[in-house]
């Protein structure tokens, strides 16, 4: 089989482009599934009584590596499978609880082709609930520069994340 065509190529983009929003209703299951998938057994991510009494929060809350996985899903939903993440920076400001509807929004902040010919997209992403930003993520993602390019084929000196 031949490789699938890229969903998105570098030349399609302009700085300031807006990514489609992602809305997700967070349930206790969302929190617990993500905590266990990331092997985070700490009780504030599955035991509501513990979270209330020991953390002083109103409920269990999303753990950081689970949020990272949500950001990754948000980015690659947009890029398709050719999109290869190079670098991400997270800042967690506030917690996300069951009952919250989390909304991920993103904007293309930077476009650059490096000296190896790799096309890099800078993204500024926010995770918010009721308009309040709970976490931010800046990402640097490689996209194909044309239909024949594949960032996953880069390594060593040709991969400068």
């Amino acid at each position, binding site marked *: 089989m031949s490789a699938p065509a890229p969903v998105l190529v570098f030349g399609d983009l302009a700085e300031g482009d807006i990514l489609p929003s992602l809305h997700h209703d967070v349930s206790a299951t969302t929190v617990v599934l993500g905590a266990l998938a990331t092997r985070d057994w700490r009780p504030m991510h599955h035991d509501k009584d513990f979270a209330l009494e020991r953390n002083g929060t109103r409920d269990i809350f999303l753990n950081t590596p689970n949020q990272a996985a949500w950001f990754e899903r948000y980015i690659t939903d947009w890029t398709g499978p050719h999109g290869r993440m190079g*670098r991400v920076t997270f800042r967690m400001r506030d917690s996300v609880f069951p009952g919250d509807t989390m909304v991920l929004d993103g904007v293309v902040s930077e476009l650059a082709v490096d000296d190896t010919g790799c096309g890099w997209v800078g993204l500024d992403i926010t995770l918010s609930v009721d308009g309040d930003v709970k976490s931010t993520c800046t990402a640097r993602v490689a996209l194909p520069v044309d239909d024949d390019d594949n960032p996953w084929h880069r390594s060593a000196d040709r991969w400068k994340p």
Partner: protein
Amino acid sequence: MSTVIEDVRILIGVPQYEETGEFPVERSYVWTMCAAVENGNPLFWDDAVAKELTGGPIAPPTMLSVWFRPHHWAPGRTEEHLPLKVHFDLKERLGLPEAVMTDNTIVFYEPVRPGDVLTTRQILRSVSDEKTTKLGTGRFWVIDVEYANQKGETVGVESYTGFGYRRGSDAKASTS
């Protein structure tokens, strides 16, 4: 005679706490993770696409730290396993009871693949002079956690910026 901060700064650039993951990277965790966040990226679900694009199945890049979280219980284990030990060492040695992580950056290199046996090590990169923020008085530090596969290839580097501090009211104690 050297001061505590000089002793701590000797460790800058020195790899510490090298360890191997408790289990090889496995696909069932990949699927559990993708299911938890409804990630339909065909790289993780469609072997033909993975073969074409990535030379076979890979794990989601952001799962890097997952492969090192210890089992909740293991036979014979008596001590709690603390991730990011260098961070806790610094708090203790510098006498800073509180700490926050201000940000976390992950840089991805070679893809992580099912079956990989990963190793990790922690490297202190910097410790600031004393600074006062709204939280209290203390120091910022940067710790890199490097991850490599069984071929010795770097698969990723996480950088954590931490701020260890004393709360405002007892901040004076840290001026020595």
